[in-house]
């Protein structure tokens, strides 16, 4: 394996280089279209070699993009709250579950695990959250359904706690008179940091990228839209317009003018992925770790 085998090295490098290029080019196209002059975009279409560049789309966002700024703020808010609560809930749940002599441990583990095997599906879940809990058109609709805590995270943290923090440490602390709260904050959280950061990374990205909760639960109060919801709504508006283009009424014409131009849409999309690009090395580190941990069980 260590010996050089040049023919094979070349093949492997060529193939992987092609793969890497195929991965990067589409994102480059997204960025290039966001800095292409609007009339060029209309005339020549999307292009890797635009005739004329323009920062108009970004100027537009900064000048008159309150809606966009607001959506960006919502994304950040939901991501931060959701991630913090997710990690807190998961850690609180996982620590007791990691103690080998917790009465009822097997039953509780099964209670968690069963949610990975079976679920009630979208319809009952939607009706419960919107008609009975009442999250519709509130920020809770973005935060609560599905993303707040999951069985996979609990099981990952539990395994980490039970394999890398010895039970005797807890017992010794208890005999010293430390309360459970103290043990949790002074021993469990610091020692569990690596796994908690990993879980936090998963959760943060899930909230940042989520658009389904907004699609299901935010209908009227569009000021609660996250950036992903905004992007999604622009697509469905255009789709709606093109399907009804035969009978363009004045209302419809007014709607058309409200949908931002292609360049602006691409600029919003690029702004939405920018943070992911910026923290990519960090994300990659924890994702690789997490995938290897939960490995096959993902």
């Amino acid at each position, binding site marked *: *394996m260590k010996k*050089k085998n040049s023919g094979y*090295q070349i093949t*492997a490098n060529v*193939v*992987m*280089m092609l793969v890497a290029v*195929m*991965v990067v080019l589409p994102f480059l*196209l*997204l960025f290039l*279209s966001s800095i292409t002059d609007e009339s060029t975009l209309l005339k*020549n279409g*999307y*292009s890797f070699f635009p005739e004329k560049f323009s920062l108009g789309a970004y100027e537009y966002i900064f000048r008159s993009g309150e809606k966009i700024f607001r959506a960006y703020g919502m994304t950040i808010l939901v991501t931060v709250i959701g991630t913090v609560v997710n990690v807190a*809930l998961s850690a*609180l*749940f996982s620590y*007791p579950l990691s103690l080998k002599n*917790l009465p009822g441990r097997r039953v*509780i583990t099964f*209670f968690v*695990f069963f949610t990975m*095997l*079976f*679920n*009630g*599906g*979208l*319809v*009952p*879940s*939607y009706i*419960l959250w919107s*008609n009975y809990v009442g999250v519709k058109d509130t920020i809770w609709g973005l935060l609560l359904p599905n993303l707040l*805590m999951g*069985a996979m995270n609990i099981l990952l943290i539990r395994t980490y706690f039970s394999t890398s923090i010895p039970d*005797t440490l807890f*017992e*010794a602390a208890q005999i010293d008179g430390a309360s459970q709260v103290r043990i949790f904050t002074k021993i469990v959280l610091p020692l569990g940091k690596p796994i908690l950061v990993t879980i936090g990374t998963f959760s943060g990205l899930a909230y940042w*990228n989520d*658009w389904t909760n907004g699609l299901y639960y935010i209908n009227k109060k569009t000021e609660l839209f996250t950036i992903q919801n905004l*992007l999604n709504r622009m*697509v469905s508006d255009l*789709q709606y317009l093109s399907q009804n283009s035969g009978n363009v009424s004045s209302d419809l014409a007014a709607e058309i003018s409200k949908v931002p131009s292609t360049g602006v*849409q691409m600029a919003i*999309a690029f702004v*939405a*992925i920018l943070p*992911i690009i910026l923290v*990519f090395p960090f*994300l*990659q580190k924890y*994702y*690789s770790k997490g*995938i*290897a941990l939960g*490995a*096959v069980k*993902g």
Partner: protein
Amino acid sequence: MEKKARAAVKRGSRSEKVKKWLPLYLMMLPGAIYLIVNNYIPMFGMIIAFKKVDFSKGIFASDWIGLKNFEFLFASDDAAVITRNTILYNVAFIFLNTTLGILFAIFICDILNKRLKKLYQSAILFPFLMSMVIVGYIVYAFFSMQSGIVNKTILPLLGKDPIFWYNEPKYWPAILIFVNTWKGIGYGCLIYISAINGIDPTYYEAAELDGAGKLKQIWHITLPCILPSIITLTLLSIGKIFYSDFGLFYQVPRDSGMLYSTTNVIDTYVYRGLMKQGNIGMSSAAGVYQSVVGFVLVLLSNLVVRKVSKENALF
């Protein structure tokens, strides 16, 4: 010392036991409530598929209609189309993600240049971290009818007429399969990379001394060594064959009605039934169909995983 401490804990009376465990149960309470609300109540909510839902009466008081919703669902063509689409797409995804995932993992592990190795590893993971909304925009930049790069640049260069991609169902299996692989290959690939890194290097050294070439080494060492991972991952994907990525089938074709014959899967069908047509009956019936068959498949595939490699089984 340690024994003494353990014994002291064990000797505790009932009240001491409560004092010891109660705070711990309280810690689990918020999470438990969440799982009950988010996961368990909807499981029982599946009864709505057997009812004629009338919100003025409430779900519990709505009339039972037995299997009517299911009879309607399976009498329509929809059930066959969404089942076929869901399963065929998943079969294609499993096949490509496995073969290409392994191939790229082998290449990446063997590449000697450390920098390039890291670059490739980063590249394959990158799209995996993006939302499907963004992926939908990127695909649109290629296939948009008026301004897409394919219609505006590539087809004219080949001297061909533009194609109305978002109106032509026949192109979408290929597009969706490509997009899914493009976005998702990194996940499986990383798992295979960690499996390959776990192989004892002396195997390869011995093989080299015996004059085995690269292909022979892959065939006789790498593949057999990672076989448990391959089988497990594949079986687990088969367990999920009744589920699909809602975003892929909703965002990437831009919910274009003309494409439904090749882009509608169970998940998008349930969503549209519920939100667009307000047909709770059919929609919930399709949901129950998915949950129940999905559950059976998970159990079956796990049963097989247990036979193959016990430590990789879910339970």
